[in-house]
């Protein structure tokens, strides 16, 4: 077909192609102005459309940015409120536990101080005064002996009496000193007790001080959120991303845990619901095993929700305490029952595997070996795994909540990046279309450069002739003027 069209003018392909080229160039030359305007207007239209699209995307980006900011701030506000609430609960607990006993403690400290004061008063050192007549007796005793035996004897008696009196006084003084020491010794435990009581009070006050510092910090963050601070928005966004990755990781681990759990109970489940029926492409026993695992996860969700650890269902969170407690008991009981069922299924799996192994051995003609000595260890291990895994899976609610909350931020960020890229691409496409239209116009002119050149030559000669004609007219006019 192409060859036929090509050789329509001549049998020689080259000549025919040249004629075609000539016709093409000629037609293109004739259609130059409309073609130029078509190309330019198309380029302009694409540019304008892309610009409009980019502008609308920018609007969308701005609104999405605002929405992301609101989401992040709302999440941060919620987290801050929860943290502040928790801190107040702790302060309340400290006040209730420790400071409620403060009046008693204060009384105890006052009593101790009174006792110490009394003991102190009792232990004050009062030196015994010698009798007033002692000086007179001392003077008499110190009279020089004149040699009279009677006088000497009297004076000796007085002297010995004086010494006795001194000894008695000293003895009494020692006794009272010992008593004072005893009193002072008895004061020691009182001091210690006082010290302990004061240390306890200090501990409590320090704890409260720490809590108040934490509350101040949280309040500062809360105020920053309320004030729409950019720094806090950035911090919260990055925190959301971190939460997203961490919770994703934990969820992946939970999925693997779920798979192991499924493997544990899928086979023995066929003993309960039969191994031959199918629902769609899946065995009913497999679906039953999956249902058990899903129910366990759901019970875990409700349990943690009732314990107010997670906040996925506001209905549960807003229940009154007695109803919540009832729900805790019910969900925990169901979870425990399912865990027990799983443990028994895991044991049955082990029995079935053993039976199957024995059958395979007998079919293969091998002698059945006696039961291994430590065969009970894997059986027990499977049972424990069957019991523990449901409870472990129940805690999946915590990373799930973090994942869902952080997912909102992540989706917002990803959508923002996509819209931004799309707007950039639209702008790039618009600019490229405009430049391409200009380039196409130049290329068009390049294609028809031969007739354009001829046109320029002709128009050039006409213009020069006109110019010469004009100059001749001017000369004639000047000549006429002169004449």
């Amino acid at each position, binding site marked *: 077909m192409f060859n036929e069209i090509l050789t329509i003018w001549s049998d020689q392909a080259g000549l025919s192609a040249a004629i075609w080229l000539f016709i093409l160039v000629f037609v293109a030359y004739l259609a130059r102005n409309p073609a130029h305007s078509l190309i330019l207007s198309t380029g302009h239209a694409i540019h304008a459309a892309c610009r409009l699209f980019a502008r609308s995307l920018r609007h969308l980006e701005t609104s999405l940015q605002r929405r992301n900011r609101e989401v992040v701030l709302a999440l941060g506000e919620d987290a801050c409120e929860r943290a502040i609430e928790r801190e107040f609960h702790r302060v309340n607990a400290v006040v209730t536990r420790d400071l409620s006993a403060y009046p008693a403690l204060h009384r105890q400290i006052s009593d101790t101080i009174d006792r110490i004061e009394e003991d102190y008063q009792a232990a004050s050192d009062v030196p015994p005064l010698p009798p007033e007549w002692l000086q007179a007796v001392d003077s008499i005793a110190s009279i020089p002996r004149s040699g009279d035996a009677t006088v000497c004897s009297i004076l000796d008696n007085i002297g010995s009496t004086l010494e006795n009196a001194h000894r008695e006084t000293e003895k009494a003084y020692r006794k009272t000193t010992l008593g004072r020491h005893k009193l002072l010794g008895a004061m020691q435990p009182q001091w210690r007790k006082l010290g302990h009581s004061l240390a306890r009070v200090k501990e409590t006050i320090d704890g409260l001080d720490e809590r108040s510092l934490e509350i101040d910090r949280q309040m500062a963050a809360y105020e920053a959120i309320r004030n729409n601070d950019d720094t806090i928005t950035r911090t919260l966004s990055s925190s959301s991303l971190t939460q997203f990755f961490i919770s994703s990781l934990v969820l992946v681990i939970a999925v693997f845990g779920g798979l192991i759990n499924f493997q544990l109970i899928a086979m023995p489940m066929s003993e309960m619901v039969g*191994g031959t029926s*199918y629902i769609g492409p899946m065995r009913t026993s497999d679906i039953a095993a999956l249902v058990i695992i899903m129910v366990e996860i759901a019970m875990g969700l409700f349990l943690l929700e009732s314990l107010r650890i997670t906040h996925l269902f506001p209905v549960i969170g807003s229940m009154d305490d007695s109803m919540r407690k009832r729900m805790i008991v019910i969900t925990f009981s169901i979870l425990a029952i399912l865990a027990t069922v799983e443990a028994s299924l895991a044991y049955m799996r082990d029995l079935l595997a053993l039976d199957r192994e024995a059958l395979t051995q*007998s079919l*293969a003609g091998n002698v059945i070996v006696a039961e291994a000595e430590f065969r009970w260890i894997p059986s027990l291990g499977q049972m424990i795994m069957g019991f523990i895994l449901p409870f472990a899976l129940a805690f999946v609610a915590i990373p799930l909540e973090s994942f869902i909350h952080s997912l909102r931020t992540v989706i917002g960020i990803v959508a923002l990046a996509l819209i931004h890229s799309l707007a950039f691409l639209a702008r790039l496409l618009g600019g490229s279309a405009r430049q391409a239209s200009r380039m196409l116009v130049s290329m068009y002119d390049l294609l028809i450069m031969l007739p354009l050149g001829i046109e320029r030559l002709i128009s050039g000669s006409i213009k020069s002739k006109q110019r010469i004609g004009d100059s001749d007219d001017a000369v004639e006019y000047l000549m006429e003027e002169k004449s």
Partner: protein
Amino acid sequence: MKKFILIAALSLTLAACDEPQSKARAVYLLLDTSGTYTREMDKAQSIINYLLATLDSGDSIAIARIDSGSFSEKDIIARMTFDDRPSTSNQQKRQFKAQIDTFVDGLRGGSRHTDITGGMLQASEYLRETGAGEKYVLIFSDLEEDLQKGHIRDFPISLPDIHVVALNVTKLRSDNIDPRDYMERLDLWKRRVDEAGGSWGVINDLERMDHLIAQR
């Protein structure tokens, strides 16, 4: 419009209620008990053991002998559909094995004639009745048919969606003289099975039975 919605909903419901394709498997093993094949019973036993180890709950198995007139219920040595529960199914397998062992121990002289076509007709009937999704006829024979006088077997048989596999097809003395006899014998059975709507295969090395039946 309402009628249209009603009809659409009804057809969707009916489509949803459509009986799904059964995933159960059924195997019918034909054992040639004529002539020298009575001495090959240990191999047949290992095939049966392989089948018992491979088949699961809900699957069916039947073992029948090929004798002078095989289109008969009496030639079925043992048959069983395994229970839904794996533990019961294991017990059934043990019973089945015991039945086969008893039969093999009691087998003395072989039959005079070999009616393979009759056995295949019987197998087709049994397999159809099981309603299994995958159906297999395994033939443990040299495929040399030797019909009793008066028995008519030269008519097209029907083996729709049945995999027919010949196992341990021993070469006869005459095959050694002219191997074309052996080839022709295999070709004849392949043609007959293909025409009957089944698929044909041969496994002579019993070590390669691993992929005989599709594993689940």
